[in-house]
């Protein structure tokens, strides 16, 4: 089951660059929330603050509160623990190249010390089914490497891998931007189905995609959250002129 995310006064820096300024919003549980905005507006940084991945960059730091469910992820837990509850899917599919499909999906479990064989088989199957990949790979689980699949399949493999550790939140950073329209549609249908079990945050350049999958949409500009509202309102009658300029494509 998914949980809600509460963000208060989140500020983030890369070195001296103030990338995120005073972000406050509530992301509803078991919904998909889309984050849109021009390149460099901070939406990717924001998402990486939600699972403390921005800390992997040595010159990054953040202040403010992020609560996932009832857990303050900066005060009450270590990054490694958070990342087991908040999964991430990246822009370019990145399956582990030396591992088979099975091992890829199970990697989050195996490398965290899980050892129950039978249960692992079940979890792998369930995750692959949940990411709509099972039928295509069920005969080659241990024979084919993760890197031998097509782009769209690889991305779904990465989704299965993220789901296998049973997170509550799934963060997706432009998950379909490297994929063709058919694969994109499959991923979008997937997000739709996953919503009922997880809380999904999806960063996207593609506004039609945001419109298709997300109930709420946030517009970021220059490190600030300009507007956060129901998706249909943002796209038919946004409250802020800057939002309107962005989504109608009018600049200058």
């Amino acid at each position: 089951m998914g949980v809600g995310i509460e963000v208060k006064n989140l500020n983030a820096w890369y070195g001296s660059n103030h990338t995120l300024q005073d972000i406050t919003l509530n992301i509803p549980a078991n919904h998909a929330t889309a984050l849109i905005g021009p390149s460099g507006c901070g939406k990717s940084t924001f998402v990486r603050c939600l699972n403390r991945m921005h800390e992997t960059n040595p010159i990054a730091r953040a202040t403010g509160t992020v609560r996932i469910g009832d857990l303050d992820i900066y005060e009450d837990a270590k990054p490694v623990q958070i990342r087991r509850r908040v999964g991430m899917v990246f822009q370019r599919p990145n399956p582990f190249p030396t591992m088979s499909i099975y091992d890829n999906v199970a990697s989050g479990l195996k490398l965290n010390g899980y050892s129950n064989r039978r249960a692992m088989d079940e979890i792998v199957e369930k995750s692959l089914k949940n990411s709509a990949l099972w039928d295509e790979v069920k005969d080659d689980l241990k024979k084919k490497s993760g890197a031998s699949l097509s782009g769209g399949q690889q991305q779904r493999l990465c989704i299965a891998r993220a789901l296998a550790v049973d997170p509550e939140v799934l963060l997706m950073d432009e998950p379909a931007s490297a994929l063709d329209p058919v694969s994109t549609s499959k991923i979008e249908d997937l997000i739709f189905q996953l919503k009922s079990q997880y809380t999904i945050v999806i960063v996207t350049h593609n506004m039609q995609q945001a419109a298709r999958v997300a109930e709420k949409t946030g517009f970021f500009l220059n490190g600030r959250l300009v507007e956060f509202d129901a998706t249909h309102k943002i796209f038919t009658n946004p409250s802020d002129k800057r939002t309107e300029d962005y989504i109608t494509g009018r600049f200058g």
Partner: protein
Amino acid sequence: MSSDTFRLRTRMRAVTDDAVTVLAILATVLVIAPLVAIFAYLLYKGASSLNLAFFTKIPKPVGETGGGMANAIIGSGVLLAIASILGVPIGIGGGIFLAEFGRGTKLANAVRFTADVLNGVPSIVMGMAIYVLIVKPHIAWLPFTGHFSAFAGGVALGIMMVPTVCRTTEEMLLMVPHAVREAALGLGIPNWRSVLSITVKTASPGIITGCMLAFARVAGETAPLIFTAFGNNFWSVSPNNAIEALPLQIYVYALSPYDEWHRLAWAGSLVLIVLIVLAVALVRWVTSRGVLKGAS
């Protein structure tokens, strides 16, 4: 431009293309030629001396014919085993430190500098250093000290392996795409686990190549063994005793005045090269079997 000028330029480009191709082939030939020449000459000089006795018998006393270099072959094997046990883990460990845990730190810079300097130490100086450190001092409670030994020879060779293995490991680890590391971190896998089980594993083909390069290099080293392993005309596999090595024996025989020993030296040289090539091929074959089908 006019069509005549155009045609002329096109033809000139084609000619230049051909000329450069010929030069490239020539350069390749020039590089390979010495290798081929050496190998051919060795075959010519040494093949006739190869017989079963060569591989199974120890050298006969001066003046007698027959005998072989079996002890040298085994001896080289023992020395290289000791060297690898010492050099590979230290080298790989150093490489992992440089690439994954010490990026940008002063310590890492110092380690890298040290490795480069070590690489440049002449092999004979290395042998002398080990002589002073291990062979000469008589420390009662430290084994292997106080006399020539396979152990000392292995240490010398092992230390020579470290810089190559270390730098190659570092390079290969740095080539693992950042995306793979991020994927592991995103799953909540602790950093050390991610480095060992994923990054190192991904880079392992390259790391193994680095080890083999180091191995092939030290397999033919003679100078450091003069003051450490020293040589031994009899069967010996104990690390505590002096031991024979193929390059060492070739050196000694080649400098000797006896034709019979010269004959054996040629044969030994041929065998040395072939064994190194075989060892490298074996490692390649064994590791390629572990790589999954279809991985790019």
